[in-house]
């Protein structure tokens, strides 16, 4: 009973702090504090509920139990992270986004191809590409190469569509100005159209970060060596070791947010001139 009461108190306290904070003028500090308070409150309530209602750890382990498992099995988690996130997702991400970028520049010279590829690309980007996973695992074997291949296929089309759209985002006036400067195709591409395409390209890169991790993890459900985040999740669920599963999810969350954050930081540095970045600063 005590734990439940404590949870209620924590809820009320978190609510009160947040409503006080959010009615003050919006600054950097409150913008950060409010979501953090919300997150901490949710975790505290979770802990209290698990203890108060004595929920079996097989169903929902308490945050403290997850943290303990996390600390205990850090070397397993690290090996899984290297296998899935670095070898599978990151390699595939770089190869897929790079290939899509080069393809976009190549077809950019032919409006005919562009008009044909955009609808097809948009269509393919909406398909459940993750279904390709079993086929690619069959082709490239169980190790990280097949996971990288799944990631390549998943990130290719969103990235392609965004880059093609970005490359056509200059207006006639700007292109005319470049022409009056006697700029050739490559100068026009490097000095005007690529910089103008950057917001679109980064949009594609950001979408691709989440897709890459999802692709690498889900591909491991179809066969993998005895390490990797997807492998660990599916086998630990089978052993009902849910605390390890949650620890793996924490790793995935950190990896996903870190990956996304890194791309977002890079975007801020590259497209500092864009209105969406300027208004925030």
């Amino acid at each position: 009973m005590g734990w439940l009461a404590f949870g209620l108190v924590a809820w009320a306290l978190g609510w009160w702090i947040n409503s006080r904070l959010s009615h003050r003028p919006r600054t950097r500090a409150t913008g950060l504090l409010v979501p953090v308070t919300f997150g901490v409150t949710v975790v505290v309530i979770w802990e209290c509920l698990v203890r108060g209602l004595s929920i079996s750890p097989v169903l929902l382990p308490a945050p403290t139990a997850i943290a303990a498992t996390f600390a205990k099995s850090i070397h397993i988690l690290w090996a899984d992270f290297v296998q899935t996130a670095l070898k599978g997702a990151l390699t595939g991400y770089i190869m897929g986004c790079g290939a899509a970028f080069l393809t976009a520049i190549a077809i950019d010279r032919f409006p005919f191809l562009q008009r044909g590829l955009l609808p097809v690309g948009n269509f393919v980007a909406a398909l459940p590409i993750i279904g390709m996973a079993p086929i690619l695992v069959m082709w490239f074997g169980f190790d990280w190469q097949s996971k990288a291949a799944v990631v390549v296929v998943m990130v290719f089309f969103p990235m392609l569509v965004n880059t093609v759209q970005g490359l056509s985002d200059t207006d006639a006036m700007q292109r005319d100005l470049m022409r009056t400067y006697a700029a050739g195709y490559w100068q026009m591409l490097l000095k005007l159209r690529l910089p103008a395409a950057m917001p679109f390209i980064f949009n594609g890169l950001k979408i691709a970060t989440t897709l890459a991790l999802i692709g690498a993890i889900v591909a491991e459900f179809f066969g993998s060596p005895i390490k990797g985040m997807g492998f660990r999740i599916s086998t630990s669920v089978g052993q009902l070791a849910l605390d390890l599963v949650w620890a793996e999810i924490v790793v995935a969350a950190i990896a996903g947010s870190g990956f996304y954050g890194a791309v977002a930081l890079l975007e801020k540095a590259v497209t500092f001139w864009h209105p969406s970045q300027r208004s925030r600063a």
Partner: protein
Amino acid sequence: MRNLLPVLTILAALLVLWYAAAVVLNAQWARDQAARAGAPLSFSALVTDTWSQDKPKLPAPHQVAAEIWQTTGAMVLEGRGFSKRSLIYHSWITFSATALGFVLGTALGIALAIGIVYNRTMDMSVMPWVIASQTIPILAIAPMIIVVLNAVGISGLLPKAMISMYLSFFPVVVGMVKGLRSPTPMQLDQMRTWNASSNQTFWRLRLPSSMPYLFTSLKVGMAASLVGAIVGELPTGAVAGLGARLLAGSYYGQTIQIWSALIMAATLAAVLVGLIGLIQRITLKRMGMA
């Protein structure tokens, strides 16, 4: 219609590439067979063989088409359209989970968006977490959700729908928040001069002006919720559904079966997204927005 010719060209090119890739990928097996039989293998024999193997590395398009016809149209003609061997049955299973998850996700997304637009505390505390929730590869917990809900006694459609819901609520929240905030200060002031209550402002101004945003996010949400349903079917032990067909196909090396399930999934996605597009066009036209 202007894009019809380029699109058809691209599709034809893809088809040619597919056939060529089938020859290259399946050649090894054909050569091994010929070497074992001790027979010389002419080029035309090689090509016909690579396009008609039982378990090819990459089945040719016509093999996949034949398999799809056998498991859908032909079975309907025999009157067994809903038997467990039919892809229509599996598509239906996947579709029902997708649709339920989509409806739940849309409802949750709209409710959250209304809360976020009308409540400053919620805006500041929930919105960052909604965005963060998508940087987490949520599909990774699909197996756990299935197993845990199963242990509580919830099984069948709902666990899969929960995963679909989780994937589809995000685009709806983001789109609806943008849409509900899209009325200009001028329009809001106009409502105020008419002495409109906040209820009236919501129903007469904010909700109607959010419709274009809503439909765009519904399309994304529908595609996401189909992915959720397919992945949700993987850990259930491959009982029924397109995801189960994928898994069973990969266990037994039935590549043709995998590809036909894949094409069915793609068709399902195209039909569902197209349907929303149709509703969008009709609704926006009747509202005078398109």
